[in-house]
């Protein structure tokens, strides 16, 4: 799935059919009134925003339902094994656990919208500030990985596409296959063994607060190994996607025309060809940011990075459901928001999207 040149070129599938258009000029539609470019864009954005809100409601319901169905009684967890039946009944009434599930969901969702995600059972603190602190660390890690993966992957893919069959093409293929086959938690351990234990160049663990405990240099030193580990899968995918999209684009007539007009190879590839690979890259950017936020759980566990994934693993193991609920909801909501932003970006990089919608 991930290693396939064609399969990852999802952007090609998502691309709507091309229609002739001119900036600022309303295109005649088949039926109904004609809309200006700004109208179309507004309608498109509104439609996507409403869909995202609906998805978000669905996501929150799934999160609530999954943990509602989990074995174990929250009242028992809170009061401990020595609680009497009447104490349990009272607490269940007090927490609203005796109400119908849909009512419980409504109350929970209503509070969640106002920023109240409950209190962590283990930490005995409100969930939201804890999530915010941890999420900051995860964002730093995911951002570091993104900065490493995308430029490197794009460069490798472009070099491979412009020199098919060459050693660099072979290298990009090996990097992609190895990148998607190596489990991140193993790569992380190998990097710790190599660069931390054996060479002593970089710290393997020891980040205690999200923003770094010893300033920017300390943060950077702690960030390098986890970010490299987390960047491998996106790097592999981006390099293969760039290669396959670029090969498709290079075969187009307009690229031949650009060459025939005497444009330099750098301009043909770097400007004319690369711009048309952007839709596919935006697709994969959206998907990979989601992977980086959730997939960071393994890397955070290996490097004891104080992020949201590491926190959630501990919360699941200790059955701290308010923390799990909050964490899943936050990441899923971020993922939905990223998908929404990706759709907006399509409209920016590909004018055909705005016009079709």
């Amino acid at each position: 799935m991930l290693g396939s040149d064609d399969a990852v070129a999802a952007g090609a599938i998502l691309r709507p059919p091309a229609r002739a258009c001119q900036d600022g000029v309303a295109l005649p539609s088949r039926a109904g009134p004609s809309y200006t470019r700004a109208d179309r864009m507004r309608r498109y954005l509104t439609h996507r925003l409403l869909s995202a809100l609906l998805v978000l409601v669905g996501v929150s319901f799934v999160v609530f339902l999954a943990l509602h169905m989990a074995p174990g009684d929250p009242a028992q967890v809170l009061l401990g094994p020595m609680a009497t039946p009447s104490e349990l009944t009272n607490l269940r009434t007090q927490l609203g656990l005796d109400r119908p599930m849909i009512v419980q969901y409504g109350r929970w969702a209503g509070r969640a919208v106002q920023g109240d995600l409950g209190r962590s059972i283990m930490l005995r603190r409100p969930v939201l500030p804890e999530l915010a602190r941890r999420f900051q660390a995860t964002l730093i890690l995911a951002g570091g990985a993104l900065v490493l993966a995308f430029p490197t992957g794009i460069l490798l893919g472009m070099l491979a596409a412009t020199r098919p069959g060459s050693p660099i093409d072979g290298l990009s293929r090996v990097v992609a296959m190895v990148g998607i086959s190596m489990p991140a938690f193993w790569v992380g351990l190998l990097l710790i063994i190599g660069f931390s234990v054996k060479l002593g160049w970089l710290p393997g663990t020891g980040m205690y607060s999200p923003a770094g405990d010893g300033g920017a240099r300390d943060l950077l030193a702690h960030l390098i190994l986890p970010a490299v580990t987390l960047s491998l899968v996106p790097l592999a995918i981006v390099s293969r996607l760039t290669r396959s999209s670029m090969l498709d684009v290079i075969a187009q007539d307009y690229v031949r025309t650009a060459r025939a007009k005497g444009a330099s190879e750098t301009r043909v590839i770097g400007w004319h060809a690369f711009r048309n690979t952007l839709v596919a890259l935006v697709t994969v950017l959206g998907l990979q940011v989601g992977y980086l936020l959730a997939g960071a759980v393994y890397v955070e566990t290996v490097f004891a990075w104080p992020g949201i994934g590491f926190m959630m693993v501990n919360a699941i193991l200790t059955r701290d459901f308010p923390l799990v609920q909050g964490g899943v909801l936050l990441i899923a909501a971020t993922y939905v928001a990223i998908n929404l932003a990706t759709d907006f970006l399509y409209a920016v990089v590909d004018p055909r999207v705005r016009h079709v919608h």
Partner: protein
Amino acid sequence: MSTEASPSSAPTVRSAPVRRRRRGRAVGVLIVTVVAVVAALAPALPLADPNRTQPSRRLAPPLSPDHALGSDHLGRDLLSRVVWGARVSLVVGVLATLLAMLAGTAIGLVTGFYGGLTDNLAMRGIDLIMAFPYILLAMLLVAALGPGLVNAMVAVAVVNVSFYTRGVRAAVLLLREQEFVEAARAVGSTEGRILRRHILPGIAGPILVFVSMNIGVMITESAGLSFIGLGAQPPTADWGTMLADGRQFITVAAHVAAIPGLAIFVLVLGCNLLGDGLRDALDPRLR
């Protein structure tokens, strides 16, 4: 797609990758076959009991007497645990893939063929599942079901159902409009027969390719859940759990963590190479 790039350069562009792909497929077949045979023969092989502890021989390095790959922190033989762990990984990977494939194919077939309200509802459900990053959804399911190998397997299977459903549904939507389906209907075939005899064979190839590529993902994901403590539980000889155990000793005995990780990497690489090769073999554009 890309083979139309430039007719003059096509032969050199195509022949080298084809050779490489065939080599890759052969390597993939070899790796998967060796691992499967060794895993199947584990009880018959002259190996130590994977759960027998020997505190006096703890953290023995590789190539030690009696411990070809060394021993772990409880003195258990790593070679034996890696071989038995292969059984767990393969069984979990294959079963989870089969579960996801069967459920996803059934839903995709029915929704794609019949359409209507069922299709609409199922697709909204799939959209909802896909709104979660899949690792997160697997963790959520494990949180709901409770940590354990079977639950982890079910979780990674459920998460992957949506990929099969989408792929199968898209293929069925194309196939159901074909003339041979219309012809079958005209001669009086029932809907069930059309699905079984005409549609299903048409999507078998792509499903097979996806299955072969998906097994590697399933193995990595289930090992990952075990690594973070949500999958297999000690003392099960599972590669993810072994890696997690070995993590505590990387400063004194790095091999305890490195060897099970290497085993996961080799098996997943084999599955991915095999899947790539199968896709190429079944896709006429890539021949």
